[in-house]
């Protein structure tokens, strides 16, 4: 493998990594508050479609991203209300959200399918930096959202582990009865976590179309939401570790088109399985090592009702 190949590969990784990272941070926020959000794939699908439609309508890329984020939040509203306010069972509610997001984006986006638009350009670093061998493109030839996602990871980690609000949020996911007896408003914290979390997931979905492919096709999220769910386990519910996890998965993702251009003769279907095989492999490995439970919120996925016992 040549240096040029490695430089190009490394340069492509952040673009694949950013949506995975944003989505995992969003999930981590929900799950740290105890809310299991299996609807992530649907949220991303809705956001990707809305972002593309906004961009095609002539909005600036930043605004198109905002529109997609808002749309992601909007499709999540029924889920959030059902799960947080009415304490509906989270697994069926999440799966229903997948169906809603995929269905609605397919139906509403038909007119926007397969049309190209401009998308978001890179941050203008000087040639001297972007031209560095190996790391130049990876570090300096990227769009603003890539850097934003890293900042978000740092902020999320700070809030979760260094502030009282974060302590309260984690307590809600860990042991809601204790949080409640300590005077922490369980629902309020879950609501806040879900709103911020689903917005981040929406941003991840919008990034796929507005920055990534610069066009929209049905089914373009292609399981990245499910991968993010596994990534959260891999990251042990920590936003900073999610950076490393997302980087690993993105490297596999970014390798696929490059292997094809190198003329490696592997059926394309097998190649595109790579990220999913990696996902299962990582989960099995973690379970075998006994790590899969580390950091897992103790009350994840179960509703809390004060008077119940």
């Amino acid at each position, binding site marked *: 493998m040549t240096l040029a190949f490695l430089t190009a590969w490394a340069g492509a990784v952040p673009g694949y990594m950013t949506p995975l990272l944003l989505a995992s941070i969003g999930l981590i926020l929900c799950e740290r508050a105890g809310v299991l959000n299996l609807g992530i794939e649907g949220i991303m699908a809705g956001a990707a479609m809305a972002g593309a439609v906004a961009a095609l309508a002539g909005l600036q890329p930043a605004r198109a991203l905002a529109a997609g984020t808002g749309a992601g939040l909007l499709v999540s509203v029924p889920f959030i209300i059902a799960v947080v306010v009415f304490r509906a069972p989270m697994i069926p509610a999440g799966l229903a959200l997948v169906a809603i997001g995929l269905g609605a984006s397919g139906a509403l986006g038909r007119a926007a399918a397969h049309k190209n638009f401009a998308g978001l350009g890179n941050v203008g670093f000087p040639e001297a930096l972007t031209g560095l061998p190996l790391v130049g493109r990876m570090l300096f030839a990227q769009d603003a959202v890539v850097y934003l996602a890293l900042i978000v990871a740092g902020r999320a980690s700070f809030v979760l582990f260094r502030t*009282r609000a974060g302590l309260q949020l984690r307590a809600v996911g860990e042991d809601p009865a*204790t949080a409640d007896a300590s005077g*922490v408003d369980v629902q309020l914290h879950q609501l806040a976590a879900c709103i911020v979390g689903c917005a981040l997931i929406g941003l991840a979905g919008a990034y796929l179309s507005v920055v990534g492919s610069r066009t929209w096709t049905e089914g373009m999220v292609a399981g990245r939401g499910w991968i993010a769910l596994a990534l959260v386990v891999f990251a042990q519910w920590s936003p900073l570790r999610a950076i490393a996890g997302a980087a690993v998965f993105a490297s596999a993702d970014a390798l696929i088109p490059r292997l094809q251009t190198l003329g490696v003769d592997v059926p394309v279907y097998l190649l595109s399985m790579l990220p999913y095989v990696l996902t299962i492999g990582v989960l099995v490995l973690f379970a075998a090592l006994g790590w899969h439970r580390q950091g897992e919120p103790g009350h994840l996925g179960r509703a809390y009702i004060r*008077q119940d016992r």
Partner: protein
Amino acid sequence: MSRAAPVAETRPVPRALESAVAREEGIALHLRGLCKSFGTARVLEDVDFSVRAGEIHALLGENGAGKSTLMNILGGIYAADSGGVEIAGRAVSINAPAQALSLGIGMVHQHFRLAGPFTARENVALAAGALPELRGRGRLEARLSEAMARTGLEVPLDRPVERLSVADRQRIEILKALSLGARILILDEPTAVLTDEEAGRLLALMRKLAEDGHAIVFITHKLREVIAAGDRVSVLRRGRMVLEGRPVAGIDAETLARAMMGEEAVARTDPGPAAPRREPGEVLLSAEALSVAADAGQGGVHAVSLSLSAGEIAGIAGVGGNGQQELAEALVGLRPMSAGRLVLKGRELSSAPVGARRDLGLRYIPSDRARFALALNAPLSHNIAAGEVRTGALGRALLSPGRLRALAARLIAAFDIAGATAGGARPVRLLSGGNAQKAVLARELDDAARLIIAHSPTRGLDVAACRHVHDRLLEAAGRGAAVLIISEDIEEIMALSDTIHVMSRGRLTSPQGPRPDRAAIGRLMLGHA
């Protein structure tokens, strides 16, 4: 009460009754006419209750009498259906735990309210969020160290709470309440999880806090603790306050028991003639040099040898956490042995699975029934049938709902499980502690039970339920089963066992002589002998 203890041993300091009454600086807490129902079940009926600053007010009542419910109403966790609360003479309404905290009500719950992975500091900070005056950095820290200085309690502040002992967790709960400025301190069965010595220290601390002017509500099932440490006592029976705020001086255990259970019940639970005990028969269980490897946080078991014969009751006394849990689990097959031999009814079973051991008549009553003995959300009938279902008596591939219900109905009657519906359809989590334990017994003490391992079988149970459990175990031994009782309660061990062993740091020792006394056992428990 049959197991009355020498009172002087647990009595911490001279009672401060006179001074408390003389101070009479007023009623810290007054509840009037509280009512509470869960669905159709009336749990509290027109309850009045008042506590003075500077006193220890003991609250007694059978399992399911409504003690925790009453206190949870005060803590803002449950909402009363009607009735009023006054704090220091001012009518208040408590709709949420945060309000209770800001009114100076501190709770040490029966099941601690501490988030396991968090440190003590973090747990305290969590609750401090409810109080604006504690939000600044450092203020909480100051309060916490002040509370530690005042009480003399020392706990590791920076280790995850789940790695600490139960006694330490309880200390954290107390420090938490005091740091948050609690003036009214409610302790829900705090001594149930402590050894005698720890309990003595807790009672002394409670006295000290009362002398500092705190109002203390002390819930317990142990009458001797009420008499040793309480200033006044109230008794709840089936949701009604049958005795309210009587001075403890001049009341005896008999009167209290009568108030708790009602006249007829006392007569029923009077110790009758001792069950005819058979001479020990063939050896059913023999463990030779059984060891269990230590793992994170647990010390393991070192070369324990033990033999049990049909009709014999053996007791293992000891301070909790000295390997009892590991030993019990190894005997049952839930934990691998690292060395030694285990023979059950003449068959080598050192590495046999749980099912094979059960088929030979091994039965287990674990100390944590909620986690290891009951599926809390499943109906009582299913919980009871979980053993019998293996025999095929309830149907083979298809279970017969009729037989399931019939079995449940029979056992509910036989074991006197209160709070269950006829067919046992209600989930087990709705039963009170004593009745949940009866459900475990109903399953484990079936006719095929040959060897019964009972770990802390009466923890948290009221006098009548304790008695019931003991009778059932004696009965089983009378039928020829071998019974191994592991308990921190020396009284319980001494009252029931034919042979007594003591476990300390993973090793088993047996006191000399046929009837060892309390002191000898106590010395062995602490490992000096």
